[in-house]
């Protein structure tokens, strides 16, 4: 039997001792890094790309990406990306990698304002339905009934309200050119998510408007499940409340 190579290490993805080793086994952040590296290479923009990581499990992802990048205060990635984009102008491609808490709890004001301004940046929100880095507290995206360290009896809507569907919600802002939600639970969705990210970056490169991609990620340590069990939960629970797909795709803002 001859071996056929079906995948290799993306050119721009660095196996970094800290950044690359940070995601726990079964976490989606490693795949987010991989897809970002693939898409930036395929679009041929690594020479102008800048990736800003918010605070959360992806905060050192820039170490694994072989183009300019860095991190910033918790919740401020969209504002920091705005500062970079406004300074470097059209010649740059600026993206953020943020968690759900970073994006839509502490970072809500920055996200909504950047989206409304039609800021030409691309925001990637990695949604694992909890605060992974700090040990599994409730996030704005935690599912109803989800047990976290701050909802020990399960998230109760009478006390803590309802999860936020950011990819859908943000479509209501006129500055948004593109919004989608992807997942890495199977090859089909992996490819679809990669396509979403490519399209999102194209909206920026073509100067159309703000672009947003939410990516669902398992969190084995804090979901207290094995990586495989996490995939089941992702498909049977998380993706029910957070369906994958494109929610907005404009070639011109209205």
């Amino acid at each position, binding site marked *: 039997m001859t071996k056929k190579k079906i995948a290799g290490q993306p050119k721009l993805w660095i196996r970094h001792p800290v950044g690359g080793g940070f995601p726990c086994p079964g976490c989606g952040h490693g795949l987010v890094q991989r897809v970002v590296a693939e898409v930036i290479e395929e679009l041929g923009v690594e020479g102008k790309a800048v990736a800003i990581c918010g605070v959360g499990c992806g905060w050192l992802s820039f170490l694994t990406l072989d183009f*300019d990048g860095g991190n*910033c205060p918790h919740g401020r990635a969209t504002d920091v990306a705005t*500062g*970079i984009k406004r300074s470097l102008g059209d010649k740059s491609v600026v993206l953020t990698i943020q968690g759900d808490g970073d994006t839509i709890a502490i970072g809500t004001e920055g996200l909504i304002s950047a989206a409304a301004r039609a800021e030409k940046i691309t925001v990637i929100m990695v949604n694992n339905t909890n605060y992974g880095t700090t040990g599994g507290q409730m996030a704005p995206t935690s599912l109803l009934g989800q047990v976290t360290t701050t909802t020990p009896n399960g998230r109760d809507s009478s006390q803590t309200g309802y999860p936020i569907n950011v990819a859908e919600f943000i479509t209501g802002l006129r500055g948004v050119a593109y919004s989608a939600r992807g997942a890495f639970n199977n090859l089909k969705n992996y490819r679809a998510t990669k396509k979403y990210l490519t399209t999102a970056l194209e909206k920026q490169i073509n100067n159309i408007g703000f672009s947003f991609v939410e990516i669902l990620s398992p969190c084995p340590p804090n979901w207290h499940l094995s990586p495989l069990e996490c995939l089941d939960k992702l498909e049977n629970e998380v993706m029910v409340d957070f369906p994958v797909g494109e929610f907005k795709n404009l070639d011109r803002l209205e």
Partner: protein
Amino acid sequence: MERILCYGNDAVGWGAVFAGCEAFFGYPITPQNEITEWFAREYPKRGKVFLQTQSEIGTISMIYGAAATGIRVMSSTSSPGWSLMLEGISHLVNAELPCVIVDVQRGGPGMGTTQHSQMDYTSVTKGGGHGGYKHIVLAPSTAQQNGDYVQSAFYLADKYRNPVIMISDSIVGQMMEPFEMKALDFDPLPEKGWALTGKENRANGERNMVQCGQGLFFEPPHIPNYGALLAHLDNKFKEMEKSEVKFESYFIDDAELILVAYGYTARVSREAINDARNEGLKVGLIQPITLWPFPSQIIREKAGEGVKFLVVEDSLGQLVEDVKVAIAERTEVFFVGALSRHNPTPGGFILPHIVLEKIKEIV
């Protein structure tokens, strides 16, 4: 040299142009609106960046991003906005990103008043955010100094890769004065080879990284561990303390009483001193130009000669604490503060005659 009549706040804008500042991010707040509006009017037509932000948190975070690209960037705010910026300033210090922030102080605490005050001294000079950082603080008292010190602030920010703060008040900002349109000369600075500009713009083609978690992981070009980070910052802060202290003195050689004041109360103090000298009283002024690093040495020396001190400050007493530390109980320190205003409303002033009365009481 062209000479114009302009508001102190507008002079900040001209200083920024002379300094080669490329971007301004700002949020409306009284009494600094003239600065933000000046940049809104003047910057886009010069091909430079102006952006009105959604909050001062947004402002300081955009400054973080803009500074990371290596351009000169600034903002201005007033006291409640200053509070919101502290998170970002702490991170800018860790990431070693230079920028300039102007705080046109208003009264507080809380909503306080939108009018003049000198109540942010402690917050601004003691690194009001978390983590015990330090930064240079410049204190102008005229429109000309507003324009000149902004240029110095950019130079010092780049020299140390650290934010520099200019602390003003609405008297300095909203008074119209003659202003000489002049670009100042400074020593050459190193290239910002660390900036995020896209790696295609770099001869070696290698990526650059900026991060505000320096000291937390071991990887050049970032500082490798916590001990190294603290030692590195300590060196920078000590170098600033050694090299950057600036103050103006006025009639201090034979003075038996020296006033210490900055901003608008320094101007009030000069007038009171002129009146006192006319009456034969030996009084002078030390006006710190850098509130941090603080001109402790000259104050200590004079205290050692037995000179008494009077701090004139439109607050309940903040600058006076630094003067007391410098004097170390060698001599007496007196205080004229916000409770001595000519009337107790937000529009009240510490007027020269009030300071003169206090001088006469002491001497």
